[in-house]
């Protein structure tokens, strides 16, 4: 089974770039940027080939290169293959971008090395066959990230963000280390596949699941420790792109990877649903108020990661994986093309005023949205689908209804209405097809969704109500947003409900450092 070792080639190539970068850390480091791009592209090719082998030969774990369960081993299955292809693809795009973008920087070589290093660390993380490697790669990722966030070490704002990030990262590492030790103690092995196969409820497993959830939530910038993520535009754009598309997923990946362990702890899962659902709505609402493009994208990431965590909490691991893939691709593009914001904002006003939907239009839109959902469901089929997945579909249809509402506004011309209905239908179909693909690809790798108990039912209803309320509020937005009461809410929301300010205060983040 030699091909199981194949994925190791990608980080190896990137680490060679890191070594080369140490020799030319400075301005215009010769062929280094192109070398890094080529290494990343080769890494992508390796990931694709490994995925092909997976399709042909099925999943497996390579032997351990090391002793006593400590060392390198590769777990190749639908989860890791997806992540490998995704991360190496984004890595190639970002390193290619950086080669041009960073030209003329005094520390371009060091930067290139740092990017290659973090990419290697994330690849090692997602291919981990054993817990020790996972913990080491997890820690390495956040250490390298910390250095990249301080690419301009003299910037006070960068220091402030990096300090907060460091505190959160250390906590999450400690949590993960605790989980790893508990699991090793309980199952007597570091091999992830073995642990997943034999995971059974017990106090050690429960505690490990809780710690895993904590590590994941901390790494995914969930409320109330999200603040650092909204402040790391202090590093060059490619760092943001890689962070938001490749690194921030680590938390979600951890939950998906350890899905069988998580499933033994329904209470922990319930907490994840609540935390994720709360942060998703919170992040989404705050994003509405953000006037700077990268900041708005950062809030969007907080919300999207939260939504993914909620999916994990609902045991919809395949959908969470789909969400990671979709979000990464979108967010990488959004950051790298953030310079288009001036054009985009200017384009908004050209075709004239926005048609504002009335309350009646909004109701119409929701009814038709749910009808589309029912129709698509009838064609593709609801049977075999879990209650959780159907509920999630309803939440997403709330979103589609917002699209429809804009087309149904009385002031909107018929041509616009037709287009909106087409967009809404295509979106719905695309969503369900992608969902089927995700379920199909991960069948056998990820555990099936258990039937909901009373706690799950309560959470599902709670989620439906709260997302529904926000969706209606969003669609009827122009009708109430100018009310003075709303103005007050806007002030507090635009400040992220002060969680970040309090965190700053606790860390003394605004203390004036006398320049050395």
């Amino acid at each position: 089974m030699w091909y199981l070792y194949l994925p190791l080639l990608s980080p190896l190539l990137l680490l060679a770039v890191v070594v080369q970068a140490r020799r030319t850390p400075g301005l215009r480091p010769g062929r280094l940027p192109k070398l890094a791009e080529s290494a990343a592209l080769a890494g992508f090719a390796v990931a694709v080939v490994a995925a092909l082998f997976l399709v042909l030969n099925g999943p497996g774990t390579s032997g351990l290169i090391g002793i006593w369960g400590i060392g390198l081993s590769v777990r190749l299955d639908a989860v890791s293959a997806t992540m490998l292809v995704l991360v190496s693809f984004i890595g190639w795009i970002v390193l290619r971008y950086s080669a041009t973008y960073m030209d003329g920087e005094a520390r371009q070589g060091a930067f290139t090395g740092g990017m290659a290093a973090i990419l290697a660390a994330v690849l090692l993380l997602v291919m981990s066959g054993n817990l020790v490697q996972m913990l080491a790669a997890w820690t390495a990722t956040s250490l390298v990230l910390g250095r990249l966030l301080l690419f301009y070490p003299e910037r006070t704002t960068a220091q402030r963000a990096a300090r907060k990030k460091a505190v959160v990262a250390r906590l999450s590492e400690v949590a993960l280390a605790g989980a790893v030790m508990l699991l090793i103690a309980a199952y007597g092995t570091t091999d992830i596949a073995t642990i997943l196969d034999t995971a059974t409820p017990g106090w050690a497993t429960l505690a490990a699941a809780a710690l895993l959830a904590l590590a994941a939530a901390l790494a995914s910038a969930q409320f109330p420790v999200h603040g650092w993520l909204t402040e790391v535009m202090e590093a060059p754009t490619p760092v943001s792109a890689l962070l938001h598309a490749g690194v921030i997923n680590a938390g979600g990946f951890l939950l998906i990877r350890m899905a069988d362990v998580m499933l033994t702890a329904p209470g922990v899962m319930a907490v994840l649903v609540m935390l994720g659902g709360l942060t998703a709505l919170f992040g989404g609402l705050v994003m509405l108020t953000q006037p700077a493009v990268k900041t708005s994208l950062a809030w969007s990431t907080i919300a999207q990661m939260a939504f993914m965590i909620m999916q994990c909490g609902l045991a919809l691991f395949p959908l969470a994986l789909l969400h990671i893939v979709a979000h990464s691709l979108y967010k990488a593009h959004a950051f790298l093309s953030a310079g288009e914001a001036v054009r985009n904002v200017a384009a908004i006003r050209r075709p004239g005023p926005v048609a504002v939907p009335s309350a009646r239009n909004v109701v119409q839109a929701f009814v038709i949205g749910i009808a589309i959902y029912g129709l698509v469901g009838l064609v593709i089929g609801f049977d075999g689908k879990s209650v959780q997945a159907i509920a999630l579909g309803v939440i997403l249809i709330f979103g589609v209804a917002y699209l429809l509402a804009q087309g149904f506004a009385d002031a909107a011309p018929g041509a616009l209405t037709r287009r909106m209905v087409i967009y809404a239908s295509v979106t719905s179909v695309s969503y369900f097809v992608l969902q089927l693909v995700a379920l199909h690809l991960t069948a056998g790798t990820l555990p099936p969704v258990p039937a909901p108990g009373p706690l799950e039912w309560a959470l599902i209803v709670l989620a439906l109500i709260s997302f529904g309320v926000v969706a209606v509020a969003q669609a009827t937005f122009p009708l109430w947003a100018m009310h003075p009461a709303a103005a007050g809410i806007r002030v507090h929301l635009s400040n992220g409900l002060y969680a970040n300010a309090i965190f700053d205060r606790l860390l003394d983040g605004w203390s004036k450092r006398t320049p050395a």
Partner: protein
Amino acid sequence: MFAKLETLPAPLLELVSEANGAARAIPPLFPLSASVAVNPFLGQSDEPLAVSAARLARVAGARIMPERAVWAEKFSAGEILESDLAAALRSARFGRLTLAEVVAAVETQAAQPEALPTVADLAAEVSGVDWPGLIEDRIGVWAASHFDEGQALWQPGRTGGAFSAWREFASRDLTPEIHGLTGFGAFVAATNRSHWRAIGRASEALGLSTAASGTAFHRWLMTLGGWAQYARYLLWQAELEGATDNTVTELLAIRMVFDEALMGLYGAQIADRWAKAVAAHEVPVTPTRDMAIDAVWQEASERAAQRRLAETLEGGAAAIRQERPAVQAAFCIDVRSEVFRRALEAQDAGIETIGFAGFFGLASAHRAVGSDVVETRGPVLLRPGVQSQAVEPGEVDLGRRYTARAGRAWGRFKLAAVSSFAFVEATGPVYAGKLVRDALGLGKVAKADPAPQLDPAIGPEARVAMARTVLGAMSLTSGFARVVMVAGHGADVTNNPHESALQCGACGGYAGDVNARLLAGLLNDAGVREGLRAEGVEIPADTVFLAALHHTTTDRVTLFDQDLPSGDWAADIARLRAWLEQAGQLARAERAARLPRAKGGADIARRAQDWAELRPEWGLAGCRAFVAAPRHRTEGTGLAGQAFLHSYDWRRDEGFGVLELILTAPVVVASWISLQYYGSTVAPVLFGGGNKLLHNVVGGIGVLEGNGGAPRPGLPWQSVHDGEGFQHEALRLSVVIEAPRAPMTDVLRRHPGVRALFDNGWLHLIAMDDTGKLAWRYDSDLTWVPFAPEAQEDRAIAAE
């Protein structure tokens, strides 16, 4: 906003006047959607550089001249001569310096300027809390939303102006209190609703005298960075419309409320030092000895450059053309045209080029296809004189609008609270394709709009008058070629927030195609030609005006031959196209040598498409001279893309109306450009656009550097620096005009604003004589001195 000025008490009225003065000391910051270069020293143009250096040191702690090492290097390399220094010293007004002192000083370090402290600075020192940073952050968070042009879906209320909107925000915002500014919300709620009265109360609480308030207000406004400058832009626009706007002083009031509150908190510890700062503000602004010396060096470096320019021009001077040219090609005076014009002229002896301000005399309020937004396609100094629109059939227009509106609805779907999850899950994978497309630069190029048309309400006589004025200003009233190409210019860049800084400044930060097409359409109109004949301008029937767009990033030229009336010019146009292609190759090769990582001319087109490219072209970096003379004075002389070239023949300028136009419009625009590059080079922290790697577009109007704070004005670091050195040499513009001195003096006398620029050295004026030599230098106060007295003496000695 609320209180009428006449109801204010007299002492407050004095403060109002000082505050309005401080507002005018701030340069405007145009929104990036249509930004133009702005002279960052606009508010200082009636004082010389040394005084501005002292002022900006006091209010911003910034140095506004190059480091001395730059001059020392040029001095030892023999680029700056002692004679340049001696000449500069003779015109210096400060410091009673000797040549030896000035020369010796360049080896030493000038004292680093330090701004007078604000209350927040002093409070930070005693409390250890970064109050200036917190205030910048708080005002930034509010202002970014307040001035947002459409980035956020949830816009704040804006009724009642900036101060009122801020009170609504700040009385609720808990952040300052979390960081220890106890009771700030209530403090804000208790401020007067009139920002003038708030300024009055804060001034009283802070013990600010009227004498101190001028630079103290200026100091506070400088801490607001780009927000104050954007507010100054609102004032600029309001004044063009004949209205007024208080946003700058409202921001001042906001800033002062913070310091007033901090004084309440820390007064006991900082009152003494604050009183000292107030006393220091009362002292008139005077340059230090270092500043006076620096100003001499700056002047000397500019004289040295002029000396070299004189030598370069002396070598040139082509013969005056006699026969009818095959093609006349009019370009914008933009320095980037110089390279291309030279390359084009090299193709054939029958090609004549003309330089003229790139809006071609038609400042238009224009509407693009499928758009309700009126774009000012003309210099920002002027109100647009005409209206125009890109016209297409109603159905096509509607279809375009529906597409745009559907795209907009999709954009809202993408960003809204719940729908963003549906968007990501349903369409995220599509972005894999977009990533590959953009990474490989495979994006599509937008198609040109249909021909723009002047407002039909503009009558035939008005059109003839417009055409007559423009041709006169171009010194083109006879000797028309068969094809007269009118080329505007525009930059093709992608993913670049500062795109408009690379467009045509004379066209308001847009590409110049609309204006060129409007002019060509006007001059091809049979009725207009009829009218021109009556005015004595005979355009031959076989002459056609052909609009074009010079793409400055790629040095390609698009010809709008689809706009032409039917006729037999196909062969001429085909030949012209071939020449333009050849000229483009030459120009690309010349520019590639200056661009990092450009392997040659062929590489340049790819770079324009590259979404990661921060230096697709150098824009106007390097600009240092402006020459208004007939083209044969400069033809064949390589000016390295550093000169604005305006075609001007004073012998055909009856009454010197065109001279007046040149000095008051294109020269002023060129000075704004030159001084923007100057400011972004010498004071990148204060007047530069910051690091492009960290740019974060805010509100669709500006860029933040990193997380927050204020938008950065001016040019980004990467636009003036290639990583190893500056691509722009910090020299103030030298204006060379071939014209007699008396009419120039007359024009300056009539336009005090323009005169101030020359009198205070923000611009140099040099008269070219009938032999094409630089003969006279304008020496302030409407007097002239010989351009190179030493050289003339030398010649006189040699002749003996």
